């Protein structure tokens, strides 16, 4: 267990360094000299104004999504829960898209985050209304449907404003390109709130993840704690969406990777998922930028492969594995 808690930060730092070193304009060697104080004005500018905020936003988004996924899986007692499968993620996107289309707040991170939070609450609440008492698999299928409705609504809104389509495509799939200090400033206060909430929530999550009666017996006020936990998850997802769009499946990947090693105790699980999520997004960003160099671009400007595409491909594989395992567990458990 200790070993994992050392390995994860190291992994995260490695992924961040890798993401810091690659990019289209400045070579890795030049970047290294700039880090150690050398290099020219341009290199240092690229490093400090483009690469560093991009990596920071990536780490923050990953941590937020890792936390959101862990909390959702505990509270819903569902190994399949994640922002993508509960309507929270696509609700947040819808909120942000609606804000952009109707209010023109695309360049105001704070307002965008609030719009995303409202949308995320809408998505989560609609799933709750439809599927409160379903078993894990059915909840997940209903969640996919709710997400599909919300994603479709975002696309419909976007077709009303075709000039936003390009930026929006990168947003729907999740991308870190063009993230600046402004985005980081919009992200970190929310992240701080979520991290503090996670610290407070960890013991309660252990109880909520088992069952309500047991939690009540040991004196936990189940409903307020559950609502607080869900609120924290929505907030984390919305902050991540407002900063970088839907970086899919990180909220599913990170907790599952970590839980296999660390077991189910949330006081270890939460920080480890946050670290794993951060490492995952930074690593995916590195991979996306490295791949961009290999892919021919037909456009006049080089935009790059969105980070979310890499995580979505990885995450789809994990979702398949988890869904199979959950279906077999359900059959063996005789719950059908």
């Amino acid at each position, binding site marked *: 267990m200790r070993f994992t808690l050392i390995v994860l930060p190291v992994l995260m730092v490695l992924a961040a360094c890798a993401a810091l070193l690659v990019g289209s304009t400045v070579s890795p060697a030049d970047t290294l000299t700039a880090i150690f104080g050398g290099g020219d004005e341009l290199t240092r500018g690229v490093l400090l104004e483009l690469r560093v905020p991009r990596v920071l936003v990536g780490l923050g988004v990953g941590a937020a999504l890792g936390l959101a996924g862990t909390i959702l899986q505990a509270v819903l007692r569902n190994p*399949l829960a994640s922002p*993508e499968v509960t309507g929270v993620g696509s609700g947040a996107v819808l909120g942000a898209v609606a804000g952009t289309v109707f209010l023109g707040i695309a360049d105001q991170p704070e307002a965008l985050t609030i719009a995303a939070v409202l949308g995320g609450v809408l998505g989560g609440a609609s799933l709750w209304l*439809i*599927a409160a008492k*379903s*078993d894990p*698999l*059915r909840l*997940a*299928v*209903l969640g*996919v*449907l*709710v997400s*599909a*409705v919300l994603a*479709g*609504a975002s*696309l*419909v809104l*976007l*077709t*009303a404003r*075709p000039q936003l*389509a*390009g930026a*929006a*495509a*990168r947003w*729907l*799939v999740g*991308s870190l390109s063009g993230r600046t200090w402004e985005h980081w400033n919009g992200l970190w206060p929310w992240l701080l709130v979520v991290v503090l909430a996670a610290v407070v929530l960890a013991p309660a999550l252990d109880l909520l993840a088992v069952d309500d009666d047991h939690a009540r017996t040991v004196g936990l006020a189940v409903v307020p704690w559950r609502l607080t936990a869900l609120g924290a998850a929505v907030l984390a997802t919305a902050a991540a969406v407002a900063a970088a769009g839907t970086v*899919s*499946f990180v909220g599913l990947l990170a907790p599952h990777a970590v839980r296999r090693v660390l077991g189910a105790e949330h006081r270890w699980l939460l920080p480890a998922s946050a670290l794993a999520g951060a490492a995952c997004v930074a690593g995916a960003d590195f991979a996306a930028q490295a791949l961009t160099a290999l*892919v*021919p*671009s*037909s*456009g*006049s400007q080089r*935009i790059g*492969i*969105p980070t*979310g*595409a890499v995580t*979505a*491909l990885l*995450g*789809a*594989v994990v*979702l*398949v594995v988890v*869904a*199979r395992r*959950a*279906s*077999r567990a*359900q*059959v063996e458990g005789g719950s*059908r």
Partner: protein
Amino acid sequence: MKRSVVVAALALLVVCVAALCLGTPIVGVNRLPAAFAGETDLEHAVVVLLRAPRLVLGLLVGAALAVAGLLLQESLRNPLAVPELLGVSSGAAVLVGVCVVWALPIPGAPLVPALIGAVVGGLITLLAARRAVGPAAVLLVGAAVNAAMQALLLTAVSLSDSREQGVLFRYLLGSLTGTTWESVALSAPGLIALLPLALLCVPLLGVLRLGDETASALGVRADRARLIVLVVASALVAIAVAPSGPIAWVGFLGPHLARRLRPNADPRVWMAWSALFGALLVVVADLAARTVLYPVELPVGGLTALVAIVLAALLIRRRGEVA
């Protein structure tokens, strides 16, 4: 039975005439013959060159998607098995999108890439879901495959020229905007050839409904029969998706309405009614999409998706048919 056929024919006629007449400018019903004869230049152009191909393609695509949906649902014994949740539509859309973005010189585009994409998408889902137990798990695996495909497609969109992006977005949602007689000519022969093939699959469906064990007791190899049905369904989806994009959830609504309205009919009757409902649905939705917010044209797939997914959620909730 006879009365319902008359009602259906009347509904089809009314919808077709409405689709030809309504819009901007409105063409009176009494002027339609003149417009078809080419006596008035403007109305001839609007009705014959703009609205008629759109109507024909809408009818064909709707019928094909609904029949494909019925084939998938009956062969997998899962009322929610729709092309959208099995990676079939998105597979087709991905390859078409990629071919457009990188201008790949594939012969027979967009039909051939759509066909390959649909079959590959469906096969990936089936292989990935092979060891999953129960319909809900299969759907979830399909949703995962679908998510990966969507990510690829959005990546292609974001790598493309900004002039193409609006068009690709529309395509992503499914839209009949800009249909010409050429796009009808491209997909009509394939669809018309495949619909009878779908009818030939009906006996297989009847056997598959009984369950795999009974089917093998009757001397039918269930997995092989299912594969045949799936390939026919994928081909239908692919040819429908190639010109218009994945018009969402018609493959769910059509068969579902058919089953609801004729609960005890045999699959052949269901297929006919599914095709009819699918065709009506797409044409009506398209009419709404192009007139409600004129001059903004909504993508028709957005409308069909909103209607259908609400119904699907109600269905799972009320009857628990999936899990």
